[in-house]
């Protein structure tokens, strides 16, 4: 099969002030090429941990992740070239400008500034950053604008797998809608596979071809949104969540 991602029985524990936190307790799933796959779960359910394991920033205790048939652990460098990521936190050098940040971000992927400059400017324009702000420190940008720059950064390296870790959390409704439609546009244009984590059910329904629900480090339901709703005879994904977990998603937050 043509899988972009294969996650097989991944487990990950953390030690925090003497206590053991079981962040992932045996997670398996697959994402097909070209899919927008949604990972839904409350805060602390293990979404970001999974994303970090895929981005080579964490090593699993056991299990295996393959990205386009390359083992994340054994073929780290190949995998790194195929992926990029947008996280909840903007994660920029806040005193540097959008251009300075993106020049660095492209540079460490091996693109000389001479070559990437045009693309950077075009990308920033495309995501709707006014030209007059290109050289402003990012600390003066709104959260929404920072997140747009983060999306630019991620797509500038032309990843074939994009990891979007709650890209719209904390944005105001307008910025949220903009970022969501941007994700759709950019996907169409770049022909990438997307893994999107969120705890926004509406967003998942709007964007994702297929979703899974993660709770306490375990996947508890998976399927196409329409089918899932049928299966649980629910009107919305929120109701599906309520059926599966027994509480509303807002009330299911785990110790953060």
């Amino acid at each position, binding site marked *: 099969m043509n899988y972009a991602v294969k996650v097989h029985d991944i487990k990950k524990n*953390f*030690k*925090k002030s003497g206590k053991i936190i079981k962040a992932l307790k045996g997670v398996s799933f697959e994402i097909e090429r070209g899919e927008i796959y949604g990972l839904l779960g409350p805060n602390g359910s293990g979404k970001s*941990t999974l994303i*970090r394991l895929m*981005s*080579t*920033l*964490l*090593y699993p205790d056991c299990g295996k992740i393959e990205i386009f048939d390359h083992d994340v652990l054994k073929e780290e*460098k190949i995998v*790194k*070239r195929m*992926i*990029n*990521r947008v*996280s909840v*936190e*903007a*994660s*920029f*050098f*806040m*005193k*540097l400008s959008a251009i*300075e940040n993106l*020049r*660095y*971000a*492209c*540079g*460490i*992927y*091996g*693109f*000389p*500034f001479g070559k990437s400059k045009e693309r950077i400017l075009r990308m920033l324009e495309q995501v709707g950053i006014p030209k007059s702000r290109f050289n402003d*420190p990012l600390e003066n940008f709104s959260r929404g604008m920072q997140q747009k720059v983060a999306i630019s*950064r991620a797509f500038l390296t032309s990843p074939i797998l994009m990891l979007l870790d709650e890209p719209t959390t904390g944005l105001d409704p307008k910025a949220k809608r903009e970022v969501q439609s941007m994700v759709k546009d950019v996907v169409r244009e770049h022909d990438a596979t997307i893994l999107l984590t969120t705890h926004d059910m509406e967003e998942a329904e709007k964007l994702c071809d297929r979703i899974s629900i993660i709770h306490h480090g375990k996947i508890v339901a998976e399927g196409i949104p329409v089918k899932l709703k049928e299966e649980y005879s629910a009107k919305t994904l929120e109701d599906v969540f309520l059926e599966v977990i027994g509480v509303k998603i807002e009330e299911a937050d785990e110790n953060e």
Partner: protein
Amino acid sequence: MSEGNALKEFYAGLAVMIRNFDLVKRYWKWEVVFFAYTIANTVTMGFVGKSMGGGNRTILYMIIGATMWSYLSVLFEVLAETVAWERWEGTIEYTFMSPMKRITHLVGTCSFAIVYGMLRTFLMFIIVAPLFGINLASMNMLATLVVLIVASISFTGFGMMGAVLPLISPEKGVQVVHIFQAFILMVSGVYYSVSVMPKWMETLSYFSPATYALEAMRETVLNGEGVGAIMDKLVPMALMGVILLPLGLLIFKWGEIFSKRRGFLKRNG
């Protein structure tokens, strides 16, 4: 490594270097404060030298100490704090996610530190020298430059080993780096000959590349000695560089694996 990949690594290293200069530019107020502090410290040491009598020679002895120490400190701090800095900015995961090799990352950081440190030191010397009417007539330029280069290589290895501390201990790493730095300052004879220390401390000084750097520097600047005459300092220093650089890289890589197991790369703990 293919030519294309080598070129990619080159651009990546360059990007690290440029980004560091961008940060210097954008944090210029901090730079001014830091620079003023270094100048004040160097001038103070110059006057300590003057008050001891002995004229130009004693003053220079102290100023060489202050200048070299500020240079080596910059090398050490830039490297040792690179991880801590990026964790604080929140960019660390993006830097570590990139396909750039770790050696490229660190060499890029070293290159920045050397260029930045040299510029800073040169500028400082230009400001401080007239204040004491310093006379450099006896200095051997070439030999002094050789000392600087060899010392830089040696010290960046030290810096890399320091850099691993914030990697494996997000909370205490930076403090330990500073303790380590203070300790090197104490045993390396920055403002005095290491022979004045108790025997056991003097023995420790032989393990610090700074000791050799300072002794060699004083020979070339004060006595005009050439490269041949300071071989006994250059060789141990170069040897330490040859050992410390790959060792530093190895330890750093080990630290990276450790922190990826424990989940320490993340911003907070």
